[in-house]
């Protein structure tokens, strides 16, 4: 299962994407500044609240499963020593808390992804980053969302074609080469057709973006984000 935007009417869905991005960054700052078990427990409640506000549940975290082995292995490796006492609990506990902190960051990120459509994310990006850099990022991000499924399908087709021709017997290096050639050629072909089509249809640096506006709930959430930054700053003092 892939984590993706799910249409809805939850509190997080109604918030401005810029607010949600600020809360995420504030949360990360606070999580890196405060790492005692008690502080992480408070942040756990907040992270759970974020996911709940986006109508999400723990199943959304399954998308991050590839990160779990590293997060579980890291405390064991950190605690292990090559001489007596062989395992240091204090080092393992320190890294275990750090691993848990990463998990909390993923929970908050999942809440954003669940509750924010790409059009709004693009508008937030383009209104926050000024000038042509913002326009480049906005248009580029929209195109990545649009073309990712097509290129995934291209690569899958290439992989099946390689297998059908007995490619399973080839060394891994050769299979990688064949699949990457097919994918890169398809990507360049699509890019050049797209570039021509964009130019033909008056692709502009100043497109019409959906309206974004801060509502009352946004001001509360912005205050939460600013509060998280303040909490992070207190640890630095």
């Amino acid at each position, binding site marked *: 299962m*892939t984590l993706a935007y799910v249409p809805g009417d939850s509190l997080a869905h109604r918030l401005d994407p810029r607010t949600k991005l600020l809360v995420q960054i504030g949360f990360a700052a606070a999580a890196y500044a405060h790492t005692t078990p008690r502080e992480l427990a408070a942040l756990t409640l907040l992270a759970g609240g974020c996911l709940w506000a986006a109508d999400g549940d723990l199943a959304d975290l399954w998308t991050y499963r590839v990160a779990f082995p590293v997060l579980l292995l890291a405390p064991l490796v950190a605690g292990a020593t090559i001489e007596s006492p062989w395992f240091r609990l204090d080092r393992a506990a320190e890294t275990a808390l750090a691993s848990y902190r*990463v998990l909390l960051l993923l929970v908050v*990120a999942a809440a954003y*992804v669940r509750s*924010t459509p790409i059009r709004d994310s693009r508008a937030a990006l383009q209104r926050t980053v000024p000038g042509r850099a913002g326009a480049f990022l906005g248009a580029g*991000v929209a*195109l990545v969302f649009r073309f990712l499924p097509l290129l995934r399908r291209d690569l899958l087709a290439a992989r099946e074609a390689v297998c059908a021709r007995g490619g399973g017997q080839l060394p891994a290096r050769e299979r*990688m080469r064949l699949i990457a*050639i097919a994918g890169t050629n398809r990507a*360049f072909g699509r890019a050049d057709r797209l570039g021509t089509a964009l130019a033909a249809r008056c692709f502009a640096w100043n497109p019409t973006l959906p309206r974004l506006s801060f509502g009352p709930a946004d001001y509360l959430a912005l205050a939460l984000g600013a509060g998280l930054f303040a909490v992070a700053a207190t640890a630095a003092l």
Partner: protein
Amino acid sequence: MSTRTESVDLVGDEAATNLARAALFAALVGAFAYVTFPNPVSPVSVTLQVLGVFLAGIYLGPVWGPAALSLYLVAGALGAPVFEGGSAGVGQLVGQSAGYLWSYPLAASVVGAVVHRGTTLRDPASVGVATLVAAMVLGIVAVYALGVAGLMLVLSLGPIEAVTVGAVAFLPAEALKVAAAVGIVRSDAITAA
């Protein structure tokens, strides 16, 4: 009803094509995250993302290559399922894989700068094998140096522990990707470049 008029600031043909190529390459690196191969030395399988980073540097050059990888990071942060295992979100850019992900634009610029020796692109097929391999080895150094540093910072690990967790199982597979990339470039099979 009022009518609003605004002048339209058109994007030039060349810039439009470059933007399309950067975006498509970013999507390609994302699609490579779904292609897994068995790892010769570890049960953890490897994906082709780093090969995508090499190819971005080689075919897009030291300017548009990093631009493509920057788009990849921003799109992933905003929810495109382009990171390892089809994951997404800002959490990945500040989590345990932060060092690896942030190194991609740098690695693409290093590979591009060595292969093209400047910002003017030249035909990659005319570049010697030694230059290609050297460029990608430098790219790998950038990826793993930042990746391991990221693990040390994020998970409070020592240098040897971070290398154990984040590099030992994956480095041998990078040699396969370098060999595959050399094969791609030397076989002159990329038609649109």
